């Protein structure tokens, strides 16, 4: 257990060393946030509620999305796939302890660093000046924090499954780039999934994309928050199982080239 905590700490410190990237990332998040906020203000000028959302809900969506962007699309997105293709991953299997938990701990450390340096500041700056709908009670804030961390965990687990495709095909990039646009739209990066047609929305609500962006937004705006967090936990467990199975299958067929 202590080893995994140390890995988590190492991941956290590793990510905080990129100061220039942090400033650029915050500037980018703020810019897109301002533009998207202006768009929603303009859309809601003549109406109060659309698809059950008010302007405050959509603005909260915008800023949670901007804050979580770097956490979900982690800058080290291709790391695992590249390590598998180059063969470096074999070393990972030789190290003591459980490889999946070790990767998860290190990744969570880096993600927590991003949550602390990107998500929190973005929300802290936007909340006082814009009509955000954030929880007012300690319990509500704790649920939101839990939901954000769970989003980061699901992000790791999905990235792990994508990275693992490199065990089977060296051209993992092309494959991912073809799926990416669909994931991009379906996880709610373009618009809140609430605006999707009902069948499509139901499909997304029951998919592992739900915990990434839309779950924290719903927890923040106080829509059956406890239930949404429970759903995220269920996905973490399901994806953990899937990750273990894939890793077990891959380790059996892993062939390392070179000496």
């Amino acid at each position: 257990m202590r080893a995994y905590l140390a890995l988590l700490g190492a991941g956290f410190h590793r990510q905080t060393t990129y100061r220039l990237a942090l400033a650029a990332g915050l500037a980018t998040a703020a810019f897109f946030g301002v533009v998207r906020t202006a768009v929603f203000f303009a859309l809601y000028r003549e109406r109060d509620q659309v698809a059950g959302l008010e302007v405050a809900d959509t603005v909260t969506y915008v800023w949670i999305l901007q804050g979580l962007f770097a956490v979900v699309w982690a800058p080290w997105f291709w790391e695992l796939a590249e390590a598998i293709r180059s063969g470096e991953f074999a070393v990972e299997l030789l190290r003591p302890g459980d490889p999946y938990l070790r990767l998860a701990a290190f990744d969570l450390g880096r993600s927590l660093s991003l949550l602390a340096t990107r998500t929190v500041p973005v929300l802290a700056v936007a909340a006082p000046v814009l009509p955000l709908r954030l929880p007012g009670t300690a319990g509500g804030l704790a649920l939101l924090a839990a939901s954000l961390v769970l989003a980061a965990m699901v992000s790791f687990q999905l990235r792990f499954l994508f990275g693992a495709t490199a065990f089977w095909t060296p051209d993992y990039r092309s494959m991912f780039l073809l799926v990416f646009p669909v994931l991009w739209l379906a996880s709610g990066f373009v618009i809140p999934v609430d605006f999707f047609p009902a069948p499509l929305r139901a499909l997304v609500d029951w998919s592992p994309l739900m915990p990434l962006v839309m779950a924290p937004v719903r927890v923040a705006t106080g829509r059956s928050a406890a239930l949404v967090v429970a759903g995220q936990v269920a996905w973490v467990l399901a994806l953990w199982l899937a990750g273990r199975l894939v890793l077990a299958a891959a380790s059996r067929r892993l062939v390392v080239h070179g000496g």
Partner: protein
Amino acid sequence: MAERLGVYLRLAAASVRATARRPAHLAARFLAAALIVTLEVAGVALLLDRFGSIGGWRPAEVVLLFGLGFTAQGLALVFGDTLEADEVSKLVRRGTFDQILTRPASPLGWVVASYVDTRFLGRSLAGAATVVWAADRARVAWTAGRAGLAVLAVACAAAIIFGVLLAAAGFTFVTVQGSEAVDVLIYGGQYLASYPMHIYGSALRFLFVWLVPIGLAIYVPTLGVLGREGPPGLPTWLAWLAAPVAAAFLAGGWLAWRAGIRHYVGTGS
């Protein structure tokens, strides 16, 4: 001059042939570039249909702006993708740029021609298809003049995005490390200009109409295409300024690139 141009054309042809050696790979990348435009536009169309209008514009009219923006962005990236910070940073760190400087050709011509990336044409084609579809739904009565305005919008916006890429590359020669901040001007500017400019506050409007004039390049000609009057301060006749302003911006980007090269120090590798 004609001989010089021939060299660049041959370089470009070579890089296109190199990517065509793996047709399945190229097709996948091309399709992915087109898909990202299609799904982004689909999302925006779903959102706008729920609301019915934004700033007095109908959904199809806004989608037209998106189409023009993506067409221009794709064109600029076909030639300018290597000027993105990460790529220039690689050229500098690996010492590749040292070799480029010793060649009897202009460094810019060399870099652009040898890294032409045709997959971004997928983005342009999907963008152009979006324009045609949106114009049909917005009941645009195409005339030669209106088609000319649409072409003007794409050409000017592509020149501006290329200018941003040039300036960013010049900046990267000094910092060596790439920066995500450039994305704000390339992708953020295009995103912003894909909604009618009059929904924004005066600061954003000024910034993206006159300083990084992508709003002037896309929004103002589109007013003409749709037969709309512009808001106060942005009359439709300003479309005539789009070409000279875009050219001036491109020239500014080129100067920044030159200044960057003058400060270039090899990394010794």
